[in-house]
């Protein structure tokens, strides 16, 4: 069995052209991971530039309203660039720079990862090109301009379903074309090894902080942690340091779109089957011949037909549980959190909020649940207005 396996999942199903680069990437990552200077430099960027540690906020009004568990929000939305994506991007960009790369390329769905990558490229003086599905450039036009302001070139991807999956295809093609000076700054815990490991490690800062913060606040571990899952990077970051804590439930909230019994869904664990795609063996939404399914979610960031291999493994072993959340439920939660706590979160994160709204009352008041609020919702305001039939003129 090859490297980077999580049970039967993972691996390196990628073209021969990229293999030596992946091997070199893994070797340098293993080196810098243990290099105190690299870690110090990264921590300085995370703390002084990105604004870490992020807050663990006790949502008191929400707790009282829902009844049951105390609800805490891990405020990744307060990071610079507005989401958890910056944690991974600063790590990878710094690593790429140390490796002598001068150019970053990345895929983006909602635009959060693209904005974070463009930001890191600007900061570290690197070239940056972002690939984004044409449909996503339309529904997230503001983020496209944001990336351009940061000096990045944005390529609208017109192949396939014109969403996140196709953006990944196109970024992989570009990397095959020009690998020598270019690092593919992959945005989630997916793709070929070593990406699922590297991205998880850089995102694990979320649960490292949250675990210490909840012990400080409550004197004990939470009953559960919940996070939304597309490829699964904020969820993996939120879960990772709680995996050994067997009493802590790990809950991943997938985008069910119009519902898991419809074709308009992106819930991979609920509706997918085992496959090999985008460099990894994992679960994918696909048809009876292994053609990747066109998936759908209101959330561009969760609109992906697969899930990272470590999540597939956590599902297989039962350590984590994955639940579907529909567009309707996510939009309700988006509005609820805004009204109740004065926080406009990303529509992605609202999937996790929606699920916790359903289950909070099943827990006792001396138990706590942490929701990873992976991003802020400014980017979604126009889409939510459209969803509610409200016309907004910019």
């Amino acid at each position, binding site marked *: 069995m090859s490297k980077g396996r999580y049970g039967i999942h993972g691996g*390196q199903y990628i073209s021969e052209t990229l293999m030596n680069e992946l091997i070199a990437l893994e070797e340098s990552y293993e080196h810098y991971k243990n290099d105190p200077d690299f870690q110090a430099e990264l921590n300085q960027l995370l703390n002084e530039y990105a604004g870490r540690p992020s807050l663990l906020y006790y949502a008191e009004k929400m707790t009282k309203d829902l009844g049951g568990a105390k609800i805490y929000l891990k405020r990744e939305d307060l990071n610079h660039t507005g989401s958890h994506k910056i944690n991974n991007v600063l790590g990878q960009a710094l690593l790429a720079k140390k490796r002598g790369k001068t150019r970053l390329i990345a895929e983006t769905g909602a635009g959060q990862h693209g904005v974070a990558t463009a930001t890191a490229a600007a900061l570290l003086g690197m070239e940056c090109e972002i690939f984004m599905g044409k449909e996503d450039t339309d529904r997230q036009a503001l983020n496209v301009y944001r990336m351009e302001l940061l000096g990045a070139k944005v390529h609208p991807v017109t192949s396939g379903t014109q969403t996140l999956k196709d953006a990944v295809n196109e970024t992989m093609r570009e990397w095959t074309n020009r690998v020598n000076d270019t690092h593919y700054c992959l945005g989630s815990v997916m793709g070929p090894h070593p990406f699922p490991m590297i991205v998880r490690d850089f995102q694990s800062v979320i649960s490292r902080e949250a675990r210490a913060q909840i012990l400080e606040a409550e004197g004990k571990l939470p009953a559960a942690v919940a996070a939304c899952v597309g490829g699964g990077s904020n969820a993996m970051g939120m879960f990772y340091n709680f995996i050994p804590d067997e009493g802590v439930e790990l809950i991943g909230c997938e985008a069910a779109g119009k519902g898991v019994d419809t074709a308009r869904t992106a819930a991979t664990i609920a509706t997918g089957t085992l496959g090999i795609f985008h460099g990894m063996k994992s679960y994918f939404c696909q048809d009876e011949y292994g053609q990747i399914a066109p998936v759908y979610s209101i959330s561009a960031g969760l609109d992906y037909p697969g899930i990272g291999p470590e999540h597939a493994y956590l599902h297989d072993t039962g350590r984590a549980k994955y639940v579907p959340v529909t567009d309707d439920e996510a939009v309700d939660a988006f509005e609820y959190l805004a009204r109740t706590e004065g926080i406009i979160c990303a529509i992605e994160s609202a999937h996790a909020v929606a699920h916790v709204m359903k289950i909070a009352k099943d827990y006792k008041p001396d138990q706590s649940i942490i929701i990873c609020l992976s991003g802020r919702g400014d980017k979604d305001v126009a889409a939510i207005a459209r969803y509610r039939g409200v016309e907004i003129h910019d």
Partner: protein
Amino acid sequence: MNTTDSGAKNKVITNLVDNVFRTPNGKAFIGFLTAGDPDADSTVKFILEMERAGADLIEIGIPFSDPTAEGVVIQDANIRSLGNGMTTDGVFEIVRRIREVSRIPLAFMTYSNPVFHYGYDRFFAKCEELEVGAIIIPDLPYEEKAEVEEPAAAHNVHLISMIAPTSETRIQAIASESHGFIYVVSSMGVTGVRSEIKTDLAAIVESIRKVTDTPCAIGFGISTPEQAGKMAAVSDGAIVGSAIVRIIEKYGADAAPELYRYVKSMKEAVSAV
């Protein structure tokens, strides 16, 4: 008969693909098309026409929704084919019709997922039955090949090894375990016509020949007879995909005469080396 359990890995595979390079000058012309583009009847007709024009091996692309190693021309062919309802079973049916009239060496080219999802054993049993002698899977590198190579070998099918301009230190390991033929990728990037191929392919082929006598064919970017001749001169053959698919894209179901003319000119260039 060998009574020890040597496993599929050491099994000697012999099939029609071994005949491909047994030409007067030892050089082969290999043509690619996407099955079902624009429809199954045309694919059958095109393959037989390319055989008549002198192609030594036809690579049949099983369409995939997300062909990450392909440039725009073959991506579009995949979309047209799937849009017209082509399936893996439909491709096997195309091959069955060809086998009624021809024993031309055939190989499949597709991605890991359609084969994995069909079931490796079931897939390669059909290949064996229809005498499809080889498979090329661009998203299956050396490190991951065991899971496919064993069931393929058990059904007498070559899993073709690919070597790229970036392979360098990997060439020895890949070449030493190769069989059937080696697919040498001419350039960085995805499939598609290129005006110029800059990689030092002679040096790559030389490194390969130090470790194996498996024939090497060069693909990616080749479209003109001149390029095909150059590639065949430094290796054992030229593989052409996008230029053929472009003819099919332009002429649709009426592409046969143009395909015949094109393949004949390419085969002549390769034979003249």
